[in-house]
């Protein structure tokens, strides 16, 4: 495998010239870009330079290239496989209820006996990630690892895009399949958050505003638990998100980050909706443990069998909630993941609205608030 990573910024252009020699029908091009701002020109330029390649990407809440995290840029990775095949597929969902169906569609498009890995990117607002993964699995079974993430829109949660062959689309999903015995795939995923206190029911909420847990004011409960640390609200609230469970099973567990604290109401405003009746549990984070979690996720990829020393593409998909909490320390986790790799590894990735990785080594599931690392190499 031959590998190049580079970036593009509107003001500076490409960080280095595209190595057109990498273009082939078995070349994977990943491009993660800002959700806002015009990247069409840059994407067309990359496409024109690499017309044979399979080019996929999506919008982000922060682009990762190496250990750096940027906003408003395009992070690009070009991986030419020498002894393996690459294929890609695209599917458009009319609404969220199509998620399972488009997963099946992608699965059928990529399905082959020697399929080893699937990397999937999907609209982070219009596609239900867990159903999409189940749709793919429904067709391809458990043999190939499914990893990836859900496109993001910064901290705005308004519109996201995915890209296939240089063309952008909303409400869509795109997937890449890697084939043959020489593909080496590693993956790892880790949170670094802890739940605490008893599980409670959401008894009063409207959209993304939470009023009551178990019939008691939710803000008061927060303050009771935070004690003297409540003085730091709302900033400290980022460290105390809420774990949501609307059913049974790990894929129904979601994390909701506190954006604002409304004292007179009293209520808490979250990044996304909290349906009444769902179960909720308090969570807490320690920044050092988050960073350590990222490092652990990267270390787990090595268990997947990536060759030491050879060219390796490391794709880091981290959660937007982590970026909110880590703030200016965000790059500590991208550094940590890169450090856990050998020197030949190049890292690209993005901050996402959801992470996809095989859970417990069996089925691919949607994670929340994790750092998910996928490594691709060839033997």
């Amino acid at each position, binding site marked *: 495998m031959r590998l190049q990573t580079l970036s593009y910024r509107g003001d500076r252009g490409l960080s280095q010239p595209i190595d057109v020699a990498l273009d082939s029908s078995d070349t994977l091009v990943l491009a993660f870009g800002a959700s806002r701002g015009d990247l069409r020109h840059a994407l067309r330029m990359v496409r024109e330079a690499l017309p044979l390649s399979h080019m996929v990407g999506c919008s982000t809440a922060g682009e990762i290239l190496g250990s750096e995290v940027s906003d408003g840029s395009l992070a690009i990775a070009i991986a030419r496989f020498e002894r393996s095949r690459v294929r890609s597929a695209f599917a458009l969902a009319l609404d969220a209820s199509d998620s399972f169906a488009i997963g099946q569609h992608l699965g059928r498009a990529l399905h082959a006996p020697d399929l080893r890995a699937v990397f999937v990117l999907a609209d982070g607002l219009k596609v239900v990630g867990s159903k999409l993964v189940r749709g793919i699995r429904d067709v391809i079974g458990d043999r190939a690892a499914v990893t990836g993430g859900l496109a993001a829109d910064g901290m705005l949660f308004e519109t996201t895009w995915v890209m296939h062959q240089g063309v952008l689309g909303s409400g869509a999903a795109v997937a890449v399949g890697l084939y043959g015995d020489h593909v080496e795939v590693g993956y790892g995923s880790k949170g670094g958050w802890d739940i*605490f*206190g*008893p599980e409670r029911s959401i008894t009063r909420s409207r959209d993304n505003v939470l009023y009551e847990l178990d019939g008691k004011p939710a803000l008061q409960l927060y303050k*009771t*638990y*935070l*004690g*003297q*640390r409540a003085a730091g609200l709302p900033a400290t609230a980022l460290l105390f998100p809420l774990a949501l469970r609307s059913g049974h099973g790990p894929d129904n567990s979601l994390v909701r980050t506190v954006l604002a604290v409304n004292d007179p109401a009293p209520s808490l405003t979250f990044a996304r909706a909290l349906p009444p009746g769902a179960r909720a549990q*308090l969570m*807490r984070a*320690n*920044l*050092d443990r988050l*960073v*350590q979690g990222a*490092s652990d996720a990267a270390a787990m990829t090595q268990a997947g069998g990536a060759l030491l020393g050879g060219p390796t593409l490391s794709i880091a998909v981290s959660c937007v909630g982590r970026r909110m909490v880590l703030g200016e320390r965000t790059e*500590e986790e991208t*550094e*940590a993941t890169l*450090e856990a790799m050998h020197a030949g590894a190049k890292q690209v990735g993005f901050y996402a609205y959801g992470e996809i990785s095989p859970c417990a080594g069996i089925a691919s599931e949607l994670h929340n608030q994790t750092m998910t690392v996928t490594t691709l190499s060839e033997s």
Partner: protein
Amino acid sequence: MDAQHPLLRRQLRRAGAEPAQAPTLEQWRSLLEAVQRTYVAADDDRYTMERSLAISSQELRAAYEGAKLASDNELAAERNKLRRNLAMFEATMQASPDGILVVDQNRRVIGCNNRFGEMWKLPADMVARRDRDEIMEIMLAQVEDPEGFTQRIQELYENPELVTTDVVRCVDGRAYERRSAPVVADGIGVCGRVAFFRDISNDWAREQKLLAAAEEAAEAARAKSEFLANMSHELRTPLNAILGFSRVLERAGAPFLPAQYRQYIEYITQSGEHMLQLVNDLLVLRVLEVRELPLGPVDLDIVAREAVDVIEALAAQKGLRVTVSIPADLAPVRGDRRAIMQVLINLLSNAIKFTPEGGQIMVSASAERSKVRLAVSDTGVGIARADQQRLFTYFEQLGAKHQHNMQGSGIGLALTKKLVLKQGGEIRVRSALGEGSTFEVSFEAAQ
């Protein structure tokens, strides 16, 4: 330092410190800041952990207390409900005029009321002890048929769903109606049996008395009928002598006797004939009581005409017109020809007797499904509704009290009814005072 903490290693690297070189002041400051931040975060973390443990523990304890209280309250409420139900059950049992015994599926006595104790003469302490064997022993000593009694109990245990009613008789004449039914609980099925004992000793005695009285009455009726039959036989001999000699006198002695004596002889003959008719009727009745009639197909049209022939002269004497209107194609009936003839003659004689001169008498018949209806109508005096019921009983000649010129034995209609019934038929009357009478006799059509 092989076991360097990964965090410290990262912090050193971020500070730019190289393991081999002494750090610069800047690097030191950066490292110290990072370490300081970690300590503070660790303290915060520990604070949150400890606090959340304490608060969670309080919350869980409160939740536990709440749940326990709720469950205790619920338990207490259930217990009270149970107590109330038991009291209701006990009061219902005790208020019952019947003796009640409740046993479980293992035949253990669950409860019985005081009335049960009274009925079976159980000592109070035995009722309280509820010892099945003890109670059974006392009961068995009182019942007329102990073997049948135990056998019935065994049968009920073998068929737990059975509901039975029978009568248990005691040696001293007491009789108890026993009603036994299974106790069935939702979701459990049959879990016992309840037996009710109702004292019917008085009813029993009364019933026996009634039966005895009925038997006595039937015996008396038989004796009366026997007596009448014997009497009839005995009466016929002197009657024949009276009638024979009066007729001889009428024929041979009349020319030599004054007119007044001739009249006396005529009275003797008429009264004798009436009496003979009475005696004959009684004999027929007696015969009908002990003998069946031979039944076969009978053509009503023919019988009716023969009967009319017999009474025609009598009717002509009173200037009555007798008509017969019977369809030619009428189905034959099942009966005895002579008996039907007798019925018709009786009915026609009555009609002639009670219809004033110049009146009409009609014999008609019609088929109705499997029956044939024969009717004798007249334009006579009619019968009051209140009297119609008594019409067909012995010695009830309704007009007799008022109209002394009417002759009749008083058993004619009773005999007629008996004859009809003996042939599987029915008889009824439709009449009103002054509007004539219609006697309807229905017979089964012959197959």
